[in-house]
């Protein structure tokens, strides 16, 4: 458990350092995720000591957004003034993004499945 937590933090730290080193705009935690994935692929399995904290954190991911979310109170004036612009662009754009990506990937998936069943016939 402690070992696993250390692995997560070390990956994050290595990610931060690498991105500063290369001057890339990718945030440390995302780079850390890619590093950990590369490591897991190299090892070929997830150690139990890592699985426990990793799954715990992922399961309660939404709790971790609360502190930043409360920060919206600092922008009460901006929100009150521009709520229509903000809501319109957030809702419409999110709708379009969800629809396009979900539809595209499912279309690809269906084509792939068709191709595979043809190959089997």
């Amino acid at each position: 458990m402690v070992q696993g937590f250390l692995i997560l933090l070390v990956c994050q730290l290595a990610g931060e350092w690498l991105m500063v080193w290369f001057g890339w705009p990718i945030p440390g935690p995302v780079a850390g995720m890619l590093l950990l994935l590369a490591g897991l692929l190299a090892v070929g399995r997830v150690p139990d000591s890592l699985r426990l904290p990793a799954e715990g954190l992922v399961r309660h991911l939404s709790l971790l957004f609360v502190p930043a979310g409360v920060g919206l109170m600092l922008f009460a004036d901006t929100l009150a003034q521009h709520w229509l612009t903000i809501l319109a662009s957030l809702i419409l754009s999110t709708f379009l993004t969800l629809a396009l990506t979900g539809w595209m990937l499912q279309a690809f998936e269906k084509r792939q499945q068709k191709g595979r069943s043809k190959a089997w016939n």
Partner: protein
Amino acid sequence: MELTSFWVYFNARPLFWMVITLAAYLLASALNRKAGGTALLHPVLVAMLMIIALLTLSNTSYNTYFEGAQFIHFLLGPATVALAVPLFDHRARIRQMVVPIMLVCLSGSLTAVVTTLWIGQLFGGSDKLLLSLAPKSVTSPIAIGISEQIGGFPSLSAGLALTTGMIGCLLAPLVFRLLKIHSDTSSGFALGMAAHGFGTAYAMQRSTLAGAFAGLAMGLTGVFSSILIPQIVKLFGLG
């Protein structure tokens, strides 16, 4: 008099606000379960509103609150790294779909930014507001970085990204029903694309496969967007 000094003493302790954050979240989750799991009463939204109300009533600043809440906030980093575990678990499925995943992610990232800026401009949003809106589909820690780079308000961007996440969870069931998107992989991926961490948490409830694809989409969008958004913003004559 005595009661006020007691309150001030307590306020100053970071532990108090950490306890409040956890308790508010648990209470909000319980409420959400009672209400049948509706996304309208998303636990994060309800917990946020409860805490904001408490802070306003007790005249406490966000900085004081964050002194305690930062210990929870800090876990976002390792939690993002931890998404590598579900990705690894579903690596076979992902490997089959590498090319479509990349294509969909690129078009999704573009759609998210371009439509946001376009609609924002249509409604006459100021440059500063548009720049803060641009990274709205990117997970908060990345949105902060992008916003800083292009000249928006970083903390507003973080909040708008969270709002987007909630909107995404609200809209997803409707969009999936309309377009008949049933597969766990496609719905998960779309959730991660449009609603980043919130979408990933929501997809995790559906299945770990959906969650893994959401986490993948979230990570890729973060990477693509940090490269794309500064360029697109320039095309719109901002920044």
